[in-house]
């Protein structure tokens, strides 16, 4: 038997992407490592890390980021699941609904921040509505950074903007589940909730894991939404990286913050990859 000739074609086709990702993704990552742990004269140092941890804004940025993730991701998941299950109901006009539900996929975090700022600002639409309903007789200062309202506004803006990606992933997952399972369960007398809880959700687990972890990683680097709504009243990790780079002109500390974001993201991505390996039929 002839040995099959080694086929170079796929490797040639992959080469440009692989090189690009090495040069502009992997290499910068190592450089960030260098910036974070190497002083300008080249010797290794933990100074930048210590300065980051002792920075006044650090703990606030970390706590805010974590609090936002905890508030946002579960809400997005529940809303996206409801939206995805609605799509399975074969509603009339579901084409239009799918389009509307996925519009936010294209909306930038900055635009979302500005939009929700226009709602929550002192002379904004929420105050106007509450006045119209007779709840308020003068504008309430929602975006007062000593209250919890800026936080709530950011959560709403992010849930509004970024639920669509979870929705799309879940719908794609639902479409790959054969209807037979749910139908069989129905024949055996399972009601709607039992079918969703016992049949659909377990089968959807791979998509759910992907969606949750993807959203968590993206939420770790939340930036423009927070700044557009809360201004300087509230900070998050990415905002500190930005400020150290642009305002305090310290690429070292900026890179240290970036490394910190990467570590949190990698922790999540690790689970992401594990989840991928377990379930080969994983939907992305």
């Amino acid at each position, binding site marked *: 038997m002839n040995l099959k000739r080694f*086929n170079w074609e*796929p490797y040639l*086709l*992959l080469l*440009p*992407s692989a090189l*690009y990702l090495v040069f*502009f*993704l992997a290499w*910068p990552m190592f450089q*960030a490592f*260098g*910036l974070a742990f190497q002083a300008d004269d080249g010797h290794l140092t933990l100074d930048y890390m210590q300065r980051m941890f002792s920075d006044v804004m650090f703990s606030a940025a970390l706590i805010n980021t974590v609090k936002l993730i905890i508030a946002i991701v579960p809400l997005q998941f529940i*809303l996206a699941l409801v939206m995805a299950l*609605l799509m399975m109901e074969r509603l009339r006009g579901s084409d239009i609904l799918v*389009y*509307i539900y*996925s519009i*936010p996929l*294209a*909306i*930038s*975090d*900055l*635009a979302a921040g*500005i*939009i*929700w700022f*226009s*709602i929550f*600002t002192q*002379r*904004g639409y929420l*105050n106007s509505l509450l006045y*119209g309903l007779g709840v308020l007789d003068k504008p309430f200062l929602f975006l007062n950074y000593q209250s919890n309202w800026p936080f709530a506004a950011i959560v709403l803006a992010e849930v*509004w903007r970024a639920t669509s990606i979870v929705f799309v*992933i879940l*719908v*794609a997952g639902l*479409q790959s589940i054969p209807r037979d399972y749910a139908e069989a369960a129905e024949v055996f007398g399972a009601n709607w909730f039992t079918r969703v809880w016992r049949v659909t959700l377990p089968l959807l687990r791979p998509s759910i894991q992907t969606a949750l972890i*993807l959203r968590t*990683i993206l939420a*770790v*680097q939340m930036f*423009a939404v927070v700044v557009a709504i809360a*201004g300087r009243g509230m900070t998050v990790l*990415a905002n500190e*990286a930005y400020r150290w*780079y642009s305002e305090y002109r310290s*690429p070292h500390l*900026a890179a240290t913050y*970036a490394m910190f*974001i990467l570590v949190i*993201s990698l922790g999540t*991505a690790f689970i992401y*990859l594990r989840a*991928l390996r377990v379930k*080969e*039929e994983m939907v*992305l």
Partner: protein
Amino acid sequence: MKRKTSYSRLVVRGLVYLVAVLIALWILIPIYLITIAAFSPKDVIYSWPKSLFPQTISLETLKFFVSAQYVLPSLRNSVVVALLTLVISLVIGAPAGYALARYIFRGKDIFRIMILSTRAFPIVILSIPLAVTFMKWGLYDNLISVAILHVAMALPTTILVTSSVFVGVSKELEEAATVFGCSRVQAFTRVALPLALPGLAASAIFTFVLSWNEVFAATILTLQNRTLPARLFIQLAASPLPFRFAGGFFILIPAITFMFFIRRYLFSLWGITLK
């Protein structure tokens, strides 16, 4: 097994429609609000309480935004960066997508997992070291540098999406073409490529939107040559309300429009299965 009465079925059905419509409104109302804000004259924007159903439509606020210093140049910058990003990521990414779709080869799974894991790679970690590097290279504040970074961000998605596009184009057709005397390359350019074109276009549009929307890297990598979101972001705190609202509306609209064109591809492209 007892069938539910048709009456209660009707009620349930009605509730399902109600929820579906309420969620649609939840998404649409904020878009409506920023739209009426952008089309309100300045004095209305500063007034309170505002009408949720304005009687007058005015271009004053949008004109004010467009005529502001730097806005038109940064609009041009945004388009240039997004087009560069789109072209580079498609030229580099589509061949890789094709390879993943068509060939079985050693290392394929590893490559795919690497691509997957970089899909949500934090842009923050790329921006800062690349800004330092570009400074050394003399590329700082250059639109190319923003495009390079946006490609790094978009490439993994481009590869995955183009791969699923080519999976959707039957391999047999390409093989048939070679049987009828086409070379391997001809079979690709004359058969597979035309069939894949709509999907590739959808992928390109998505890349454009990704780049158009990106704020962090664009802000870090530029100083004078800002893209529109970067310009808006930098000036946000110091800007009057009409400027902010018009700016938000301005970056929102192209994104929504493009989304409309690729709506058919949403699930076939972004519901990519690994198998």
